[in-house]
C-alpha cells in the first residue's frame, strides 16, 4: 500500500512537471492517466520495495554528492588516457565482494561502479561483482571498499 501511494505521488509529480497545464480538463485527464498506469503497474506486478526504494530516499542525496565528486575525478583520468594513447592504460579484471544485503543495494553499488568511468560491472552473481577497469589503480580503490561501505550505509 505504501509503495502504491509513493508511486502515485511520483507519477502525479511526473505528470505535473511534464505538463505544466492546470486547466480542469488536463488535470482530470492526468488523474485518469495516473490511475490507469497504476492499475497496469499492479497488473504487471512492478510495484514493490525494489521499484520504490522509499526506505533509502532520505540518504540518497548525500550519496549522490559523493558520487559526483568521484565521477569528476574518474573522468579526468579516463580523458587523459584517451588523449595520451593506449600505452597509458592497464586494463584489469577481477571479482570483488559486495556487502549489501538487499538486491536494490547491490544494484545501486553495481551501477555506481559502472557510472564511474574507468570501471564497469561486468557481472553480478550473488554477492560477487566482476569488474573490468581501465587502470589497475581503479580496482585497488574499489577493493579498499569506500564505495561499498557508503552504499551499505544507505541500506540501514
Amino acid at each position, binding site marked *: 500500500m505504501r509503495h502504491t501511494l509513493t508511486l502515485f505521488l511520483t507519477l502525479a509529480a511526473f505528470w505535473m512537471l511534464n505538463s505544466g497545464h492546470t486547466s480542469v480538463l488536463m488535470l482530470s485527464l492526468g488523474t485518469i492517466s495516473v490511475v490507469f498506469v497504476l492499475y497496469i503497474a499492479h497488473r504487471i506486478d512492478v510495484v514493490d520495495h525494489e521499484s520504490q526504494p522509499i526506505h533509502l530516499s532520505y540518504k540518497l542525496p548525500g550519496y549522490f554528492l559523493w558520487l559526483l565528486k568521484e565521477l569528476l575525478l574518474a573522468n579526468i583520468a579516463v580523458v587523459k588516457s*584517451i588523449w595520451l594513447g593506449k600505452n597509458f592504460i592497464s586494463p584489469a579484471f577481477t571479482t570483488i565482494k559486495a556487502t549489501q544485503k538487499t538486491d536494490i543495494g547491490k544494484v545501486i553499488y553495481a551501477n555506481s561502479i559502472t557510472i564511474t568511468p*574507468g570501471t*564497469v560491472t561486468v557481472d553480478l552473481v550473488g554477492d560477487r561483482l566482476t569488474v573490468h577497469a581501465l587502470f589497475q589503480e581503479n580496482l585497488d580503490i574499489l577493493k579498499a571498499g569506500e564505495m561499498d561501505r557508503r552504499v551499505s550505509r544507505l541500506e540501514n
Partner: protein
Amino acid sequence: MTLDINTIVEILSGFCLLIGSFLCISGGVGILRFPDFYTRMHAVGVTDTLAAGMILVGLMLQNPDALVVIKLLMILVMTLFINPTASHALAKAAFHNGLMPVLDDTEILNSKERNKTTDNDLEPK
C-alpha cells in the same frame, strides 16, 4: 566594469558547454582509439555521464523557463539512470559469450589479431 548576474550565468553556461563539448569529442576519440571492447566501454562512459551532464547543465543555465529546466533535468536523470544499466547489460552479454578482455600490455600489442579471432568466432555459420 560591473559583472551582473546574467553575465555570470552566461559565462558559466558557456564554460559548461565547452567542457561538455571537449568531453564529447574525447569520448568519440576514445571509442576509436581504445584496443578492445571493454576499454571502449569506458570511453563511452565518459561521454555518457559527465559530457551529457555538462551540456545539459549548460543548457539549463541558458534558459530561465521553469518547464524547460525541469525537462532538461529529467533528461539528465534518465541518462544517469539508464546508461550505466545499458552498459552493464552489454558488458554482461559480451562477457558471457566468451569475449575476453585484453589484459596486459603484450596482449594489447596483439590486439589486432585478437580482434580478428573474435570476429571469426562470431562469424555466422
